[in-house]
């Protein structure tokens, strides 16, 4: 009974994850066998120097890349061998991903950038628009639905990216250095949004960051070096 309950609490379980790739004939060992578990409702900060494997790990967990070796489950589903079509569907319905450089479609309005995913999920246009509006209000951009990304500041763009990721109410939200291109004040706004999502709505968040002060918003810190976990500690809660 206890085991079943424990299993239900686990959002991600990673076992001996390895990712090696070849760049211009040079073998890069990005991940060298990492294992850990992430519980539902946790706000994880992943830190480490450049080349430590943090972004690679986030991409694998976000189903944007595949590991060379190892196993991992998301919400108890082994996703390593999922066919491409199912990975796509899983990404659409279960996971949210916030990119370092926002990755918004410049030719779409703020609302379109967000509601296109709801359309993809099969919702009607009006339902999709109201979902997008709700998500954009959560990140404080409810009044900028018709703007295009080029008319927004860096912080606003990142908040649109977050709104896009949370509009579909994902089980897990991945954020790859979401404040990398932002000043301190704007970074604080973005991190507050993530913090609210985690605390108020129980959103599981896995965030890669370079800045030590960002970890003050996280509940747990995982530190990587040379593709291995060198530190894994609880910060609060």
């Amino acid at each position: 009974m206890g085991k079943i309950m424990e299993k239900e609490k686990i959002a991600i379980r990673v076992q001996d994850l390895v990712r090696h790739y070849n760049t211009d004939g040079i073998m890069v060992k990005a991940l060298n066998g990492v294992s850990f578990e992430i519980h539902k409702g946790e706000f994880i900060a992943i830190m480490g120097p450049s080349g430590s494997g943090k972004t690679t790990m986030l991409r694998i967990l976000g189903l944007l890349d595949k590991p060379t070796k190892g196993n991992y489950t998301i919400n108890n589903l082994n996703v390593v061998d999922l066919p491409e079509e199912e990975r796509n569907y899983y990404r659409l319905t279960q996971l949210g991903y916030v990119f370092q450089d926002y990755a918004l479609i410049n030719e779409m309005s703020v609302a379109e950038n967000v509601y296109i995913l709801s359309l993809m999920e099969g919702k009607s246009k009006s339902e999709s628009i109201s979902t997008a509006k709700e998500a954009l209000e959560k990140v404080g951009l409810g009044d900028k639905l018709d703007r295009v990304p080029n008319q927004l500041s860096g912080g606003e763009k990142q908040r649109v990216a977050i709104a896009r990721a949370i509009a579909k109410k994902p089980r897990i939200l991945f954020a790859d250095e979401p404040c990398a291109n932002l000043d301190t004040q704007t970074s604080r706004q973005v991190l507050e949004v993530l913090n609210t999502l985690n605390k108020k709505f129980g959103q599981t968040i896995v965030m890669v960051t370079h800045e030590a002060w960002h970890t003050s918003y996280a509940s747990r810190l995982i530190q990587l070096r040379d593709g291995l976990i060198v530190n894994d500690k609880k910060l609060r809660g």
Partner: protein
Amino acid sequence: MLDDVRVGFTSALSSVKRGNKKTLMFIIFVLALIFMNLIFLPSFIGGISSMFTNFMDYSYGDIVIEPPGENPYISNSDNVLQKVRAIPDVKSATKRLDAGVSIQYNQKVVGSTLTGLIPSEEYGVSNYPYIIKEGEFLGDLSQDEIILGGMLVQGYFGSEIYDNLGTVRVGSLVNVTYANNIERTYKVRGIMEGTFELVDLNALISYEEIEDVFSLNGSKATSIVIKIEDNADPAEVKQKIILAGVKEPVFTSNEKSDAILRQAMQSIDMIHVVSNIVSLIVGAALIFIIIYINTLHRKREIGILKAVGITPGSIRISYVFISIFYVVMGILVGLIIYFSLMFYFTRNPVLFYENINLVPEIQGGLIIKSIFKMLGMSVIAGFIPAWFVTRKSILDAIWGR
């Protein structure tokens, strides 16, 4: 699938609405030129082809029946005509009697072929009634009246090339001497100009007159000229005529045409076909390149869409929509340019061989075919590059690899 189409359409609509307007205009302009290339030159070639076809119409219509073997005449041509007219694809048919003559006016004498015809029947078979430049065409009641070809009359098209009858005009009296030495005097009723030697060196008179001069009976004819329905194939109708029991030799105008003319028409047809193929290949390649570059330019965008969970199918549909939009706009602009040019060239024809006006021919069928070809190409050109890019891994697409 329906969701793929909805998302593809939404994405395409944003792309078109908010994409770079200068790039959009450039793409549409190039596509308009590609479309023009598909229809403009063929319209001119079609004009030349029609011009040559019209030349052939005078003498041979679409199909001509001639006397068998060494016989100078088709015997009982009315019987042959009856069989021919009963064939559904035959629009009209008439008989003619040709005779070699010399024509004299004042002191000038020229040799010519005098064609005896039934005037009212010629309206449905040849262009003779429509090329009278001075005076009038013959009527069924015309007696002792003659139509002269322009080359026999000083000042008309090509009259300087051969001997002519000088200042002869409508109302002048000319003496005609037949091969049997019978000489008759006729009043010039009209002068025709077909800007074609085989026509303009001839003269026309009524069928009964030749019949009378040579004392022919039993409805003799030197040829039976047949016009067929517009969509009928001359070769097929020829076979039907033979199957209807016509024993005399039957020729299509193409078979009977003068060697040079035939060669010219064949060359024109060949140019037409080659130009069509080249235009199509160049058009397809250009559409493909334009859309391919445009798609590659958006590789990162495609990667992002895939990364957030948009299906590859909807991304491909989106690019097909964009491609169709470009091509439809290109076709519309192309049609505006095309019809403007056609309007101009119809009013200001290109001068061909001294004074022949070459007017391009607007071919509805060709335009519709070209529109479908362009749309077909746009679907392929939109789909293939998007298919290539969506097959790439998400990270490769985002990084532009």
